[in-house]
């Protein structure tokens, strides 16, 4: 099936985007937004007018940035892990653990205090990253050294975090939700981190020797082994990076509010799974993942605003959109390319 949008070129982006598929995604999204803007300007009193007012409002932009940060960052992390051959479906758990750890450490330090000149909220931020990285390290050891099933181990990461974070919150704060810190990280920081991480990830994957090794480890680990590069080291690095990036995402999510919400599915609410959808949708390309993450977060933000304006949009329906989209994309387009050796253990001969 030929995608008609695939032929449209975006000259500035061409160097960044090697696949037609991602290009058509971006062109399509920009096209829809453009049409909405035009329709909204022509008919300001229609639904299109309302929608355009919401979509292009500053509050939607900030809330999109806030919601997109965990999706995009965990998605980028997922790319690193999966490209190296380790499918990390525990991203959700990494987001949860970092969201809790960041708030906890920030409150322990105390807002207004600082450690080595670093304000408490940023100390919390780093702690969230550290917690997520540590958990991903355990996941990596279990999968790579002890050859556990990656899917089972990933589910374990999620379930452990899902149980542990609200439990710790109850122990330390007397309830599954932590009290509000009374301070937060502005959405602008989230936006900058997301964009910087996307560019850095793209560069790391496509231009550095590490990126080539990562890809070889996921596609044909034996080829990498025979040229003298340790497959397990590369895979550990990929998994740890998924922990670092998810940690940034989880901390940004919690600290943008200043609170950890541990009831139900916790405040992460499946964003780790949507992150997997986002990088599959983006075909393992960081730029595509950014696009998909912003799209999903944007839909969510718009849905929230629409409800506030009195439109009866069922939120559960909107939240299924990413999953429906990925199934449609995978079924119809089928361009997503799972690394050949993803999910397989590798054993060196000597």
């Amino acid at each position, binding site marked *: 099936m030929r995608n008609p949008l695939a032929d449209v070129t975006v000259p500035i982006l061409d160097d960044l985007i090697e696949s037609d598929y991602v290009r058509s995604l971006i062109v399509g999204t920009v096209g829809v937004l453009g049409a909405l803007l035009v329709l909204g300007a022509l008919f300001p009193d229609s639904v299109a007018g309302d929608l355009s007012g919401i979509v292009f409002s500053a509050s939607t932009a900030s809330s999109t940035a806030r919601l997109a940060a965990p999706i995009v960052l965990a998605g980028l992390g997922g790319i690193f892990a999966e490209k190296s051959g380790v499918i990390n479906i525990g991203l959700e758990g990494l987001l949860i653990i970092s969201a809790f750890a960041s708030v906890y450490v920030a409150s322990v330090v105390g807002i207004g205090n600082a450690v080595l000149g670093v304000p408490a909220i940023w100390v919390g931020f780093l702690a969230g990253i550290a917690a997520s990285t540590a958990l991903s390290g355990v996941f990596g050891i279990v999968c790579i050294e002890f050859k556990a099933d990656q899917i089972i181990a990933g589910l374990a990461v999620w379930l452990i975090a899902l149980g542990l974070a609200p439990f710790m919150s109850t122990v330390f704060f007397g309830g599954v939700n932590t009290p509000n810190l009374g301070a937060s990280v502005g959405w602008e920081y989230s936006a900058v981190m997301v964009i910087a991480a996307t560019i850095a990830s793209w560069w790391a994957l496509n231009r550095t020797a590490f990126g*080539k090794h990562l890809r070889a480890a996921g596609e*044909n680990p034996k080829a*990498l082994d025979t040229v003298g590069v340790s497959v397990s080291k590369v895979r550990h690095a990929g998994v740890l990076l998924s922990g670092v990036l998810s940690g940034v995402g989880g901390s940004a999510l919690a600290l943008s509010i200043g609170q950890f919400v541990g009831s139900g599915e916790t405040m992460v609410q499946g964003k780790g799974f949507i992150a997997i959808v986002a990088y599959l949708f983006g075909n393992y390309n960081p730029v595509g993942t950014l696009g998909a993450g912003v799209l999903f977060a944007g839909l969510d933000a718009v849905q929230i605003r629409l409800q506030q304006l009195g439109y009866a949009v069922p939120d559960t329906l909107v939240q299924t959109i990413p999953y429906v989209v990925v199934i449609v994309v995978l079924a119809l387009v089928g361009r997503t390319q799972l690394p050949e050796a993803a999910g397989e253990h590798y054993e060196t001969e000597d």
Partner: protein
Amino acid sequence: MNPAVHMDGITKRFPGVVANDDVDLAVERGSVHALLGENGAGKTTLMNVLYGLYEPTEGTVFLDGEPQSFDSPRDAIDAGVGMIHQHFMLVDPMTVWENVVLGNEPKTWGGLRVDEDAAREAVVDLSERYGFDVDPDARIEDVSVGVQQRVEILKALYRGADVLILDEPTAVLTPQEVEDLYDVFEELTDQGKTIIFISHKLGEALSAADDITVLRDGVNVGTVATDGVTREELAEMMVGREVLMDPATTPQEPGDRVLEATDVHAEDDRGVEAVSGISFEIRAGEVFGIAGVDGNGQSQLVEAITGMREPTDGSISYLGEPMAGESRREHIDRGMAFIPEDRQERGLVMSYDLTENGILGSQHDPPFASGGRLDWRASREHAESVIEQYDVRPPNADAEAESLSGGNQQKFIVGREFERDPDLVVAMHPTRGVDIGSTEFLHDRLLELRAEGKAVLLVSSKLDEVQGLSDRLAVIHEGEFTGVVDPGTVTEEEIGLLMAGEALDDDSVEGAAVHDAATDPADDGGDGGVDA
């Protein structure tokens, strides 16, 4: 001057096995050296020692007279030894240059960027210098196997290899690509590189190498110059006794009609007609051979006969009864043995041990099936007897099929099928990947079956094999027989013409065809007498 490679008194012991026993090997700079031997002779072990994968139990490796001690392949690479494995170590979705420089990427920007231009240039330089025609930006998955092999050679050269080891380099190549590879050898040795290649094919060693070292049972039997040795001498060195390169068939009067195919049509998996109206018959005590280039409908014809594919038209009768469309199990139960072309796909269950594989197809029959359960003791005895009679190594009924080498897997399948006591054996490439000693044995067994009055349908792309064993030989081209000839009188050139789809008008074709269609001395009693 010191030889480029000198392996002195190499002994490599594994628990319970001596893979190399005091082997000496000396290879001159700028020469092509073939390491010849049967499966399991210790060729690959010796090269793994040279490549640093194994540490020798005893002995020393010298490169240019300098003693070496390798802890890992990395050390060997640094010392200028490059290995090209039989199964290529390439990353399919990556480009040629990415694969060549993998692990040794040139970098700029303080290591933050792979210097693509430098990498591409290095690949282009190397491939121009050695006359390789390789596009550095092509993806591996898009290029032919021959080109992939060159990329492997480029990888070794890029890492500064002076000595190149190739493991069975022609196994995956087309005849034309093999010729090209020999040209590459010449170009490399002209520029001072030294090549050692592992092979079990005599012809290949004789046409490509300057010197040949023959290994047998882990011992160096001798090193000879290619000029001063014949095929027969080499074969004897490899096997340790005189080898009859041509199996001896004795004339024999064919008996009752066993298989009769009439105007058989069949399609391939894509629904394209692959067999277009083939008719023939095979009688008891007769070997009917089918020669042809692979992919001319042999597979579909054989599948139609063995009950794995329903013919679209025509009839197949076996022992006087119509067979087309009957189940596979029915075919087995009526005594049709089948040696499939893809042994790993259809001949064996790779994760089963030999005991389990040995009863595949007989699992419903006594003594293996008794009262709704399988009799593992009987099964094991059966597997062990096949292993012993057909010299399957290692002789262990508990070994999983995938742990055996290809040749030994094949011997086990052939043994299992021959021991079924069949009326008809359908054998497709029965000796593919099997070393010469075992090939000779399998050929003898095939002829014994013939002498016992079994019918044999032999499909092979090895011309000397079908020609040497068959009583009548059909040549297939694009789903049709271009001729049925007498293998005793037909020349190779004539078969070649038939394989290319040209018709012959001479006597040998007509004579055989007439025999096929009209003269049937045993026909009268035949049809009625085979019911039992």
